[in-house]
């Protein structure tokens, strides 16, 4: 069976062959994968050697470690200060001045890809500016906006499966955005998948490009969650001054509006299709102050303040992980504050917890080495979901999901209410995205964004 193991073995053989070639006999073996401060987005994960005679758990821990290193290198590169071309500027370093503009925020927001009337989009240039935002808009300003009537995907303030918004401890609704990188945009453009009409005439299977180790990146989707922050808290968050757009609603009834807010990044999902992951690699990061874990709550090991949890409110008065009561009105400050706890979704997959904790410690050391005031030190990897059984840029026959590891993975800001360990109900990035289609009944290669075509 074509598995990650095959890739690891092939990589080991390739390294050996390089070492044995006379011209390169003095070359050292390829270094084990490591988290590095680099603006280069990894095209794929790099695999280190397995321990001798490993158990199943040891194999999974080792390879999870390789994928978590990939995730951190991706996070660092995506959050690197960009140069004029939008790519990471090698003359700058992430967090050297505390906070910085980022590469991924120069990716194309999907609301500027799927335009009214199915118009042809461009990768650069001004994005879509809602009428209500035009008076406050300045060139280059980020706008977090409604992205279309697609009830089963993230909208401006709701979550997958219409499970509801998440409201911070100040009563403000959390906002979301989805962006795609140039290779993903180009594939959509070249195949006219940006419009319903184009999707209708598209024949064959949707196949986004795969990233290659030490080569080009594949299709990348970034989903970000933002909360309103006090300007005094900017030192703890990657933040932006943002135009927050709320579309008009009939129930409850309120008009469209737009306001300028200081927003802090609280969640970041990165999906990347690579040669070793036809089902995409799913890296998910959160702000360290978001929520306590179930174990933290049980042991009383709590911080004094969280973004989405009040440690002073007893479970009897503030039951955890409850959907806010309707009506949901993001234009007003809510009396309801979300009381969110991170559920343990790694039972039987403890390697995922162990690996993320180790890689987070490594990354923290690196980021602090740049600057003790780096805002990036306040972000942690929750885990990376990867397929354990997959071919080179294509699924193994009979196993379209690729048997993901870990079995479940949720970001508390993006899949707040579908945490858990129930198949087809609890959050599993690959399982959920495998159901995605275009506006036609054709699978869309693990992305829901094509449903936004007009």
């Amino acid at each position, binding site marked *: 069976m074509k598995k990650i193991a095959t890739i690891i073995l092939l990589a080991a053989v390739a390294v050996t062959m390089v070492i044995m070639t006379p011209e390169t006999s003095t070359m050292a073996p390829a270094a084990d994968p490591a988290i590095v401060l680099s603006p280069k987005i990894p095209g794929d994960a790099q695999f280190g050697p397995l321990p001798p005679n490993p158990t199943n758990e040891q194999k999974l821990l080792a390879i999870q470690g390789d994928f978590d290193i990939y995730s951190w290198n991706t996070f660092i590169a995506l959050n690197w200060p960009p140069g004029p071309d939008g790519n990471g500027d090698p003359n700058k370093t992430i967090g050297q001045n505390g906070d910085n503009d980022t590469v991924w925020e120069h990716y194309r927001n999907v609301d500027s890809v799927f335009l009214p009337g199915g118009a042809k989009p461009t990768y650069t240039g001004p994005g879509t500016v809602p009428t209500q935002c035009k008076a406050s808009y300045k060139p280059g300003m980020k706008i977090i906006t409604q992205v279309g009537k697609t009830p089963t995907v993230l909208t401006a303030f709701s979550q997958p499966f219409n499970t509801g918004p998440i409201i911070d401890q100040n009563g403000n609704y959390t906002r979301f955005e989805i962006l795609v990188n140039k290779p993903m945009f180009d594939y959509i453009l070249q195949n006219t998948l940006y419009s319903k009409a184009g999707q209708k005439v598209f024949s064959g299977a949707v196949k986004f490009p795969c990233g290659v180790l030490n080569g080009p990146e594949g299709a990348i989707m970034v989903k970000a969650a933002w909360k309103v922050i006090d300007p005094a808290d900017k030192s703890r968050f990657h933040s932006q001054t943002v135009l927050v757009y709320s579309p008009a609603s009939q129930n409850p009834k309120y008009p469209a509006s737009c306001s300028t807010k200081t927003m802090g990044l609280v969640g970041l999902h990165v999906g990347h299709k690579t040669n070793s992951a036809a089902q995409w690699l799913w890296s998910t990061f959160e702000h360290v102050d978001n929520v306590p874990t179930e174990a933290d709550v049980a042991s009383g090991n709590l911080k004094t303040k969280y973004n989405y949890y009040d440690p002073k409110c007893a479970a009897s008065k503030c039951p955890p992980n409850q959907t806010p009561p309707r009506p949901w009105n993001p234009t007003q400050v809510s009396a309801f504050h979300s009381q969110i706890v991170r559920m343990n979704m790694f039972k039987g997959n403890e390697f995922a917890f162990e690996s993320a904790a180790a890689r987070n410690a490594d990354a923290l050391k690196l980021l602090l080495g740049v600057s003790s005031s780096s805002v990036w030190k306040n972000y942690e990897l929750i885990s990376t979901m990867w397929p354990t059984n997959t071919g080179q840029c294509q699924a193994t026959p*009979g196993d379209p999901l690729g048997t993901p590891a870990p079995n479940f993975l949720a970001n508390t800001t993006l899949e707040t209410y579908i945490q858990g360990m129930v198949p087809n109900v609890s959050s599993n990035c690959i399982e959920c995205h495998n159901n995605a289609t275009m506006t036609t009944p054709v699978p869309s290669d693990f992305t829901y964004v094509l449903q936004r075509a007009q």
Partner: protein
Amino acid sequence: MTTPPNNGGSAPSEAVVQDFANMSAALMGFQASFIRPFLDPVNLSGIFYQFAVAQVGQTMMDALMSAFDALSKQTPPLTAQQIADTLLEVSSPTPSNQALLCQSIIAMWYLGSWYPPPFQKDGLQQVISSQAYTKSLAWNTAQAHPMGFSAFPFGYWSQPPGPLTDFGVNTGGGQ
């Protein structure tokens, strides 16, 4: 991510789980590498082994594994079918408790549930876990999927299913 989760009780050794997977594959006509893949984040082999031990006791499971070990080392080597026929005592009208345990192990893999063997006092018929249900092998044998859970993408029903070998079934070269 501050306080680690509780890891639970101790797990059986890798060798024991692999032996159990090899025996299960022989009993059911599946590929051992499908039952226990190189990377196994679901770990049904380990879960089912521990579950069966909890039901019938370590002594009885050790005896079954020893019987399988002896059969798998015979010269000339026995086929998987011969090993299964021997363990299941197919020619006996009154199979032993060990053979009845084999029947329960087969049912566990195919249906994700424990059907207590007749000798198990107060045994409870039960679904072992949600993943045991969705990953149970009856679906693979039918080239299908359980109700409420499909790994296949939208529109798969308009295509003929893949060959049995794609579903891990050991067809002995045939289809």
